[in-house]
């Protein structure tokens, strides 16, 4: 069966295809290059080799940073979920005098450039004597992921059915039980999306982290950044390929999970609310 497209439409679809190819191009090249036998990324690859993978696992020095990045992403996500959900609840449910300033303050790390946050945090932690500690990284990452959690949690909170909470209260639930059994379960889609955002942002964070990490506390992105400035051999491509494979698995899991929890609606409402938050901020 042949479907005839109007020429304008065909052009549009062709453009979309080109755009998608553009989006995938550098990633595809990195994967191919990880098997390049040349040590300076010569193109086309003169031969096939897996030595960059053995180099990566034997003496790449990325093991420690990788573990640190995972721990950091999980810890920062847990912290910003806890703080962000409570902040969203406080903002939505109570008539606070400090509501506008608080909103602005929570959204501020979105607007202040990451390098400025990182540099400011670097000076502060140096003065406090925390420089290079895991705690200092955790604080920085929580600060950066918090606005996303607050935004998504607020969006999720706006959509819940409050009669469920009222029913719970009428049935004798304490406020804490209401929160845990009636409010939070209804927000789980938005919270799952917030957790996903937070994990990804923290795991990839470079601009602020590069100022805060000490010499012995590199995260994976900062270690990769420093490696790329020094060597540029395909060990980085091998590491990238491993990360790409991991993120594909992660993305698939995420898509399934978000689909199941109905978080996609919260995600698409995100732009609107983020724009609103940006406008409120100054």
């Amino acid at each position, binding site marked *: 069966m042949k479907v005839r497209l109007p020429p304008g439409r065909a052009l549009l679809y062709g453009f979309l295809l080109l755009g998608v190819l553009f989006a995938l191009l550098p990633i595809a090249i*990195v994967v191919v290059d990880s098997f390049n036998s040349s040590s300076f990324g010569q*193109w086309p690859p003169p031969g096939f080799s897996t030595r960059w993978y053995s180099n990566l696992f034997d003496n790449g020095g990325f093991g420690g940073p990788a573990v640190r990045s995972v721990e950091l992403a999980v810890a920062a996500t847990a912290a910003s979920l806890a703080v962000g959900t409570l902040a969203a609840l406080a903002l939505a449910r109570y008539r606070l005098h400090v509501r506008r300033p608080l909103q602005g303050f929570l959204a501020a790390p979105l607007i202040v450039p990451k390098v400025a946050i990182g540099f400011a945090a670097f000076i502060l932690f140096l003065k406090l004597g925390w420089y290079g500690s895991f705690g200092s990284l955790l604080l920085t990452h929580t600060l950066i992921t918090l606005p996303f959690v607050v935004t998504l949690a607020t969006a999720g909170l706006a959509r819940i059915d409050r009669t469920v909470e009222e029913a719970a209260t009428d049935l004798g639930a304490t406020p804490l039980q209401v929160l845990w059994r009636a409010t939070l379960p209804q927000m789980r889609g938005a919270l799952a999306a917030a957790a996903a955002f937070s994990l*990804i942002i923290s795991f990839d964070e470079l601009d602020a982290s590069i100022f805060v990490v000490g010499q012995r506390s590199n995260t994976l992105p900062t270690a990769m950044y420093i490696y*790329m400035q020094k060597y540029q051999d395909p060990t980085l491509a091998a590491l990238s390929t491993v990360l790409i494979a991991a993120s594909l698995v992660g993305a698939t899991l995420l898509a399934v999970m978000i689909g199941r929890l109905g978080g996609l609606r919260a995600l698409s409402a995100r732009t609107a609310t983020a724009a609103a938050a940006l406008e409120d901020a100054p």
Partner: protein
Amino acid sequence: MTSFVFGTAMVILLLYSFREFRNGTLTSGHTTATWTAFLTSAYFWSVIWRTIKLGLVVVAVTAAIGYPMALALYRLRSRTLRFIAYFLIFAPLLTSVVVRSYGWALILGDSGVINNLLIRWHIVHQPVRMLYEFSGVTIGLVHILLPFMIFPIASVLDQLDPTLEQAAADLGANAFVNFRRVLLPLSVQGLIAGSQLVFALAISAFATPSLLGGGRVQVLASEIYNDVGTLDWPDAAVASYVLLAFALAAIGLFSFLLRVQTGTARATWEAPR
């Protein structure tokens, strides 16, 4: 706690901008010397101008590529194809910025993919320099920020009432008129929101300009990093606040445009004709 850390850190940063770095040490006492030196230096204005130019060019290119892509996504009838296209456009966001910059370094380098093809096809004889040039940084940033342009436009288009287009078609509008008079005015909001996001992210981007610029394409963010390396904290503090000022100004400007646009759109629709 985190807000406290953030607030304190930003205040300390402001204090540092009123100190001076001279002969390898921080001078004591407060002075506006660093601010004056910064704002009267031709070098820093060239860095500031390069940063703004990068932001503007990246916004223009992502809008030119992103708008038709968002429109095509909106037009795709098959839900499966649409899902796949969305997935492929947003999947790169899951890979590290360093990974993507590294990929572009391989593509744009003097012996990279593009130059290899250009030379083999006898289009050029000398490799075209793109890596460690403004053009290379622009290409890398366009790639990284494209999803941030597509997403707001696509979500605005998705919320449109499909009967609007039908009504226009019934009234005799062809595809072009329909686009020009119905879709475009209604989706300008998404375009403005996307531009706001992309501009703010582009002027404060650090990794891509620094990795694909190789120290030859200095922007405010990489300037701050270098100053910290050379211990010139007051200078880095001033640069941070200049960058913040531009980010705020841009966000304010785009928010204003958004408000004006929403106002005129409403007026056009509500006005009796």
